[in-house]
């Protein structure tokens, strides 16, 4: 069996597609760049929607990208239970497309934030296998990263999604003071109810190459590799027998 193939969607205005491809390569997978105008996912085993400013973030971040031709296939792929990861702008696109619950609004500070944060892993998914409870040091760089659950409160996520990452301190405590953007409940990333679609604002792909100093993001991609090599898609695995 060859290396699993993982699609990285490239929208006009994507910035982090190359870093995502590099992180996938370093983790033992074969990245496949998928142009936004394609209507075919080229037989990939998983999809990553990278960060950037697709379509200039016009109207709202991700609002126009969700209508890209490739997104129809990504939606089908996600609904079939295959792993889909949205990073930063990719997370915003997944929320706009309704593949993840909630929305990302302007940071409460109104400022673009670019710095490193600590995030605590809350649940196991194809992207966080064996990482529950781990605290990762990852960069963030966004101006629309304030996560709001669909009904406003964290309780409204029940049944439609789950919290996967929270902004925390280095010891893993999700204190309000370390919340960089005003997200409800310090939420930095969520998953779909089935768990196969995951989105997060921090950038694991920027912390994956040892030459750039930090590799806290690598386990997210290694987890995907383990998932693709060992297990069926989560939604299928979760079906009653």
């Amino acid at each position, binding site marked *: 069996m060859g290396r699993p193939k993982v699609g990285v969607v490239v929208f006009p205005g994507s910035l982090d597609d190359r870093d995502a491809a590099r992180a996938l390569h370093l983790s033992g997978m074969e990245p496949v760049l998928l142009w936004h105008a394609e209507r075919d996912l080229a037989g990939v085993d998983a999809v990553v929607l990278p960060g950037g400013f697709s379509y200039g973030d016009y109207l*709202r971040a991700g609002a126009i990208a969700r*209508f890209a031709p490739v997104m129809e296939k990504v939606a089908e792929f996600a609904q079939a239970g295959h792993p889909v990861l949205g990073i930063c702008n990719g997370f915003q696109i997944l929320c*706009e497309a309704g593949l993840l619950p909630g*929305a990302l*609004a*302007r*940071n*409460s500070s109104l400022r673009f934030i670019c710095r490193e944060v600590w995030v605590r892993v809350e649940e196991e998914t194809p992207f966080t296998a064996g990482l529950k409870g781990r605290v990762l040091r990852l960069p963030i760089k966004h101006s629309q990263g*304030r996560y709001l659950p669909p009904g*406003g409160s964290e309780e409204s996520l029940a049944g439609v999604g789950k919290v996967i990452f929270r902004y925390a301190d280095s010891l893993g405590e999700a204190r309000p003071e370390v919340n960089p953007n005003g997200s409800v409940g310090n939420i930095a990333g969520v998953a779909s109810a089935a768990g196969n679609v995951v989105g997060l604002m921090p950038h694991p792909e920027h912390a994956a190459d040892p030459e750039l100093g930090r590799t806290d993001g690598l386990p997210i991609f290694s987890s995907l590799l383990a998932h693709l090599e060992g297990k069926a898609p989560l939604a299928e695995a979760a079906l009653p027998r």
Partner: protein
Amino acid sequence: MRYVVHVDVLPKEGILDPQGKAVEEALPALGFSGVEKVRVGKHIVLEMDGNSAEEVLARAEEMARKFLSNPVIEEFRVRLGGAAGEGRSG
């Protein structure tokens, strides 16, 4: 017939609107007092062809619901108007 439709998109009541808050706090500093609350949103002007006002408004409302606003964080209002930019201005 050609219609002009105005769509106002505002952050939902009760959801923190940092932009509105920043404007609200800046107004007294500029000598404008008595403003209790400010919300900042978007005003979108659509020039549309259609057979009746009702039909055009219904289409605009669908656009607003599916695309021009995000129902999780925003609310919208659609209304028929005159030429773009009508009304008093500086």
